[in-house]
C-alpha cells in the first residue's frame, strides 16, 4: 500500500491517493473517521439569563455546533470516567461561559470568541462564528458544559466537515480522432484541453475528473472511454479544526485496529461458550438459513 500526497486547498484539508487498496477498506476508514474519532463539543447549556429574541434551545443547539479545540489527551470520556462514574466532573467535562449585555442605544452580534473556557486549552477554533444577533437592552448569560463524544452519537462531534473518496479516473482518448470543442466544454471540471489546429483533445487535469461521463455522452461512440480504477483511491477530508487533520487519519487507523482486535477476542470467547454449552446456539429452522445449497 502506498500513499501519495496531492495538493490541498488549505492546511485543514488533506487529499491523497492510496494505491494497492480497495473500496471496502477506504470506506471503513471513512466511517471510522465520521463515527468514532472523538472530539469535544458543548453538550449541555445552563441558561442563567436570556431575554433575547432567541429561544434557549436554539442558542444551545448553535453552541453545540461550534468546533472546539480537541487536541488534548487528559480529558476522560464522560461515560467511562472513573472519577465520577459518568455523572460529570472536572476530569471529564470543561465549562465555558458566555456573558453579553447590550446597552440602551445599540445592539450587537455575539461571536464564538466570547466563549471563555475554564481550561485554557479548550477554545473555539474559529473566532468569527456568529452565534446570534442581540437587540438593544438585552442580556445573555450562560454556562456551557463541553465533553468528549463521537459522531455516532451526534454529528456535532464529527471531526471532519467533509470527507469522501473516489476511484482513480482512467481516461483514454482514441488517437487520431477529431473532436468538436463542445466535447471539451461539456466537462464540468475542465479536464480536457482543446487543440484547435488538430481538432484533438488533450488531458489537462486528470485528477479533477469525477467520473460523470458527460464527455462520453457528448462525443461519438467509442471515441472517449472513462473508467474508475478501484485499486487506486483518491481520498479527501477536511477537518473542522477540532483536531489536526493528520491526527484524524492516524487515530482512525488505530481505532480500526482496536475494533478488529476486539472482534477477534469476542469471537474466540463466543466459540468457547458455544463449545461448552451447545444449547446456547439458537435453534434455527431450515427455511431461515441463507446460503448456497449444496
Amino acid at each position: 500500500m502506498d500513499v501519495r500526497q496531492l495538493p490541498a486547498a488549505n492546511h485543514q484539508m488533506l487529499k491523497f491517493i492510496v494505491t494497492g487498496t480497495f473500496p471496502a477498506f477506504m470506506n471503513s476508514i471513512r466511517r471510522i473517521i465520521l463515527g468514532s474519532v472523538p472530539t469535544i463539543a458543548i453538550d449541555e447549556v445552563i441558561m442563567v439569563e436570556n431575554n433575547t429574541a432567541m429561544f434557549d434551545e436554539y442558542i444551545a443547539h448553535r453552541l453545540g455546533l461550534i468546533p472546539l479545540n480537541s487536541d488534548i489527551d487528559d480529558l476522560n470520556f464522560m461515560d467511562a470516567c472513573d472519577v465520577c462514574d459518568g455523572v460529570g466532573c472536572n476530569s471529564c467535562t470543561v465549562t465555558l461561559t458566555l456573558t453579553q449585555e447590550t446597552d440602551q442605544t445599540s445592539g450587537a452580534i455575539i461571536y464564538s470568541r466570547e466563549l471563555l473556557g475554564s481550561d485554557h486549552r479548550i477554545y473555539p477554533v474559529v473566532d468569527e462564528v456568529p452565534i446570534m444577533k442581540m437587540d438593544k437592552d438585552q442580556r445573555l448569560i450562560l454556562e456551557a458544559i463541553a465533553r468528549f463524544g463521537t459522531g455516532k452519537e451526534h454529528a456535532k462531534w464529527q471531526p471532519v466537515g467533509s470527507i469522501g473518496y473516489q476511484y482513480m479516473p482512467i481516461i483514454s482518448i482514441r488517437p487520431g480522432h477529431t473532436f468538436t470543442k463542445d466535447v471539451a466544454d461539456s466537462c464540468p471540471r475542465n479536464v480536457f484541453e482543446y487543440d484547435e489546429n488538430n481538432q484533438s483533445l488533450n488531458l489537462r487535469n486528470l485528477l479533477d475528473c469525477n467520473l460523470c461521463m458527460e464527455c462520453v455522452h457528448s462525443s461519438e461512440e467509442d471515441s472517449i472511454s472513462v473508467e474508475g480504477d478501484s485499486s487506486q483511491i483518491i481520498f479527501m477530508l477536511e477537518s473542522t479544526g477540532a483536531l489536526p487533520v493528520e491526527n484524524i487519519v492516524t487515530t482512525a487507523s488505530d481505532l480500526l485496529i482496536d475494533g478488529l482486535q476486539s472482534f477477534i477476542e469476542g469471537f474466540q470467547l463466543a466459540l468457547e461458550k458455544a463449545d461448552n454449552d451447545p444449547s446456547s446456539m439458537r435453534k434455527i429452522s431450515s427455511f431461515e438459513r441463507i446460503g448456497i445449497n449444496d
Partner: protein
Amino acid sequence: MKPMNVKIQILEPDYLRMQIKEDPHTIFNLLRVLALEEEGVKLAGYARDRTFEDSVMFQIRTDGSVDPRDAIVNAARKAIELTEQFKEAFEDTYL
C-alpha cells in the same frame, strides 16, 4: 479494549453464523470482502438484523476444505495488517 459482544448462532463444519452487537458496515463489510478472498470460502456476507440498534448477522460458508472459524479469523488478521500498512504509509508521507 472490550471484546465485542459476539453470539454464535449456528456452527457446522462448513458453516458459521453469528450475531454481533456492533455497527455493521464499518468493520463487517471489510471482513466480508477479505473473507471472500480466503481460499475455500464460498459465501461470506452480513445483514442488519435489527432496524433500530447496532446489530449485525454475519455468515460464512466454505467448501469443506477450510474451517469457517479459521477463515474469519484470518480475514480479521489480514484487515489488521492492511490497516497497519496504511497507517505506516500515511505517516511516511505526512508526518
